């Protein structure tokens, strides 16, 4: 009796329908408060957003819009600026995600190898994660400053060119922004990977070491396979977060110089709120979603297939 009271398994519902019904009502009552805001402010906008993509809506006081079929999408095919921005967005997203993973893996391995200064590093590693993106952007603008910035001063002191306009130069602006992206996203990835590393039994490493495996061999044979599921999930999440990131680039460069850092989210924002073409902007957003979902599906599929291959061996 007590078990059924606290653990409503589906089978009890058949025996005591009245009790099950009251329990269901209770559960609905507990869930409803979170369901309402989610439905109104997140599910409904998503549905309306998809609908908007097929209209010619404009952002005006008294909107009057009609169904436009796939007009927005055919117009989009010829919009080179959009495809340029999608290409920049891919470089930004893939660049940041991969460098994040590499940098975070290195730091997590260091933090897991019993060095001193761990406490300091762990606290420091949280700073980029905690900081408001706007503050991060202001801070890096100062670091990258062409005159009197510490980065150029350092380069000058070791005899390298010291007059690079990091955020204003066509060829270095995107890499410079990517470095900031890595700085921001590294902590969360590090913390996640470190938690994964700490779950790998020490005996596995010791056994491999006894068999004469070197550090690199131990990493590829023991550490990496054990971390694989965590790497897959954090990489997928990082990919989505980086693809959707807006604030950092908006404040750092606003898409400049000359559109060289115009990531797609920023492009769509400008289309919607500067050009006021929200129907067209929604179509772009929809294309973006499809692209992200496709890439993730391919990536996750390949990961699962590798997993199965490993297990089958």
């Amino acid at each position, binding site marked *: 009796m007590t078990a059924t009271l606290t653990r409503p398994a589906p089978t009890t519902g058949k025996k005591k329908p009245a009790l099950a019904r009251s329990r269901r009502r209770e559960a609905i009552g507990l869930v409803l408060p979170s369901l309402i805001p989610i439905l109104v*402010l997140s599910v409904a906008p998503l549905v309306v957003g998809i609908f908007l993509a097929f209209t010619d809506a404009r952002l005006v006081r008294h909107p009057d819009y009609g169904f436009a079929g796939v007009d927005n999408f055919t117009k989009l095919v010829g919009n080179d600026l959009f495809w340029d921005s999608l290409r920049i967005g891919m470089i930004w997203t893939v660049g940041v995600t991969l460098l994040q993973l590499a940098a975070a893996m290195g730091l997590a391995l260091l933090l897991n190898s019993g060095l001193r200064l761990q406490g300091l590093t762990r606290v420091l590693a949280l700073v980029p994660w905690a900081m408001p993106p706007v503050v991060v952007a202001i801070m890096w603008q*100062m670091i990258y400053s062409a005159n*009197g910035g510490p980065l150029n001063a350092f380069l000058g002191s070791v005899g390298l060119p010291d007059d690079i306009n990091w955020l204003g130069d066509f060829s270095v602006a995107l890499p410079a922004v990517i470095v900031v992206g890595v700085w921001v996203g590294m902590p969360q990835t590090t913390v996640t990977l470190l938690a994964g590393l700490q779950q790998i039994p020490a005996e596995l490493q010791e056994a491999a070491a006894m068999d004469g495996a070197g550090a690199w061999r131990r990493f590829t044979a023991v550490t990496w396979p054990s971390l694989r599921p965590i790497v897959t999930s954090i990489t997928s999440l990082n990919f989505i977060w980086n693809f959707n990131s807006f604030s950092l680039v908006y404040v750092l460069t606003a898409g400049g110089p000359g559109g060289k850092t115009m990531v797609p989210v920023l492009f769509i924002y400008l289309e919607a709120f500067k050009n006021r073409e929200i129907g067209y902007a929604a179509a772009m957003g929809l294309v973006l979603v499809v692209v*992200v979902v496709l890439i993730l599906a391919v990536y996750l599929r390949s990961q699962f297939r590798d997993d199965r291959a490993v297990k089958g061996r």
Partner: protein
Amino acid sequence: MRTLVRPAQYVALALYILFLGFPLLWLISASVKSSGELNSLTVSLLPSEWHWDNYTEALEKQGLVRSAANSLIVALASTALSVVIAVPASYVLARLKGKVRAAGVGWILVSQVFPVVLIILPLYLILRTLGLADNLAGLTLVHTTYMLPFALWMLQGYVAAIPVELEEAGAVDGASRLTVLRTIVFPLLAPGVAATAMFSFVSSWNEFFFALVLLQSPENYTLPITLNMFVGGEGKVALGPLAAGAVLAAIPSIVFFSILRRKLTSGLMAGAVKG
């Protein structure tokens, strides 16, 4: 060979510490330099003289204190709201089996893929219709909604860690389900609620995109928006006070995250293990 490994590791660690820590040090240093020193070509981390006036100047800047107050109101309100509605729902999510749970967990994961840029357009239209665009209450609701998935995820991990036997013991004593929740489950959840609340607070305090789109009148601006105004355009502010304002804006987030340090890992992992 073996003797070289440790020094190499320390060199690598030092480089990481430099990369992670230097930008913040530089920001703090800029916040206490005089404008003369900031514009000179000699570059040094330590200021030649400590110039605290930047902080008073930042605080006297039009709008900074008011927008900090706006940020505080929105962050406190949306944190309270999201915790109050997430605690009961996370209980159901953690304890129920079957379709309800699958749907809940599925939605939490999908919400991570939500294309904010697609949602923001209709969201803006909906809020404008409700008279909640350019309004702190509207922003609070939006922040609450977008913090919910993570709050639910974290909290259901904490609920799952509470042994069901404890609740059964309460039920044996004849307590109703709601009494069991109130007297046994919720008190045990307190640390999880505290961690979730701090995380939600920081998310709202830092949030930029929704605030940028939704808030139009300067008197409604939150702190990130005002700081962004200081960077370029009309409100351009000298470097020193800007750095000072940026440091002040980052302090609450960094303090909360330092407290949360351990919880962030364990909370995320707790959610992950159960999921």
